[in-house]
């Protein structure tokens, strides 16, 4: 019983930890889950991305991660984007360091960016050996493309609640619409599921106290005080087993 409760608490802790690992990026443009960038590098890139959004109204994000929380790369990119901004227009590139793969999610008016421009952004990042330099190059390229491409169209009228309606249908990377703010709905059944398991274990634990009749396991209470004397003791080493697992490569970019 205790083991089950401990297992559930650990499961809950892991689940909450996974939520925290995603939501730690909240309100950021540069998301460094793998802790690759220094603080000053991060601040510099973040302020640059913030400047781009304030200037052009388009959110440019970049995410370094080594864990996609069990999601596919594309879903993870979409999840990170929608969890960190309420700006309907934007683009995010996620770099999964564990698998060394890139995933792109484009939202709203940023969908006007064509494949060639997105490849150019990726190339800008990829061509620089350092993470900081690569992300900086990516932001510069993105600024250049946004300035030329995205905002050459007519801005939607104020009060228009669905800017995605105006998005051209030649969706390059992701044809789905953007989720706006809040916690994704799929987390409701997860939260309730965890809640029901914990609730049942607590109630079951209380109800099991209604049974108080059971055989004694031992006779420890009848041990004569001071009678335990250890006369022989041996701890013999038998053998050892060594397991080696490769670490995720976090220090190398490619």
């Amino acid at each position, binding site marked *: 019983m205790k083991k089950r409760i401990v297992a559930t608490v650990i499961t809950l802790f892991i689940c909450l930890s996974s939520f925290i690992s995603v939501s730690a990026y909240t309100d950021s443009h540069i998301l460094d889950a793998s802790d690759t960038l220094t603080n000053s590098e991060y601040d510099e890139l973040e302020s640059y991305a913030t400047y781009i959004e304030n200037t052009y109204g388009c959110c440019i994000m970049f995410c370094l991660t080594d864990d996609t929380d069990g999601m596919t790369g594309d879903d993870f990119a979409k999840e990170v984007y929608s969890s960190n901004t309420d700006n309907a227009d934007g683009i995010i590139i996620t770099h999964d360091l564990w698998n060394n793969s890139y995933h792109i999610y484009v939202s709203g008016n940023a969908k006007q960016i064509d494949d060639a421009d997105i490849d150019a952004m990726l190339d800008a990042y990829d061509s620089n050996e350092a993470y900081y330099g690569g992300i900086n190059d990516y932001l510069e390229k993105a600024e250049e493309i946004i300035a030329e491409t995205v905002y050459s169209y007519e801005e939607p009228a104020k009060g228009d609640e669905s800017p995605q309606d105006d998005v051209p249908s030649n969706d390059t990377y992701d044809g789905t619409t953007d989720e706006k703010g809040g916690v994704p709905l799929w987390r409701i059944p997860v*939260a*309730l599921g965890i809640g029901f398991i*914990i609730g049942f274990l607590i109630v079951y634990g209380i*109800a099991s106290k209604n049974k108080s009749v059971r055989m004694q396991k031992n*006779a420890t209470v009848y041990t004569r005080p001071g009678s335990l004397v250890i006369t*022989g003791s041996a701890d013999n080493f038998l053998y050892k087993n060594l397991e080696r697992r*490769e670490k995720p490569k976090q220090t190398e970019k490619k």
Partner: protein
Amino acid sequence: MSAILEQKCPCCGGAVEFDTGAQRLKCPYCDTEFDITAMPEDNSNQVEQVSWNSQNSQWNAGEADGMSVYACNSCGGEIVADATTGATSCPYCGNQVVMKGQFSGALKPDVVIPFKLDKKAAKAALKKHISTKKFVPKAFLSDNRLEEIKGVYVPHWLFTCDTTADASYKAEKIRRWSDENYNYTETSYFDVYRSGNMGFDNIPVDGSTKMPDDLMESVEPFDLSQAVDFNTAYLAGYLADKYDVTAEECMPRANERIRQSIDDAFKDTVKGYDSVQSQNVNMNVVNGMYKYALYPVWLLNTSWNGNKYTFAMNGQTGKFVGNIPTDKKAVAIASFLLGTGIGALIYGLMWLIELL
């Protein structure tokens, strides 16, 4: 045919009872109190032996085995009891009687722990036991009826011994470290051996087949330092059985508990490992002795919904045990409500985390 013994008041002739508060014999009619030692062990002048022979042959062979018939010294009424009954009350006049033959010679208990708690305490303990439990069916709380409450001296065999034992364990040490490219886990396996001595005093094993073993072990422990030499006067006012499970038959249970205790104690000395598993325990019992004791237990029987529920209270310490039915519907509802609340809390925490 058996002889019975009644503890009579020298003042008024009424049947005296053992008073748990005063720890003396007391006459409920004239309130006179007597020391246990003041009462004769055997009032032979009042003992009557009556032969009862069946006048017809209606009993099949073996059908009456295990049955004894006694005659009440006070009213002459016929008391039918099973073969192990050692003390009971006359169904006609209510006098407490002790079947002295059940406790004579080799059957005489070595010690007895007198009742310290009375019937009122047992009733109060039952009420408290039920009222403090959760998810008990409401109908059980309101409809369950206390059908019977009886103080019983339950025969126990007490085993005292020294043991020499050796035990082996399989133990593991786990070491983890990392370098730039790899995580390492090294598991070292050990064969651990311990030997030693251990002594046990008065491990009780239920000597009555009438009493459920798990119920009797649940009301343990009893404080044997308060035990006194057996005297039939302590049985006055209570039921008592003689043993019908011999000491030899109880030894395997005592050995089982001893073996587990040794295993636990030796295992506690195996330190410095991440996991320890018992392999085997070999023990030798030396200086083994056993004695026969009567332990005081209050038994309370209730009925509800066609089922009988038996509760037991240690008549010395007041430890109360007994299984209570659980309202499965209430458990399901409580699980649902609590689960929903916890789920909402978790979801709220997610919101908060998102907002931070």
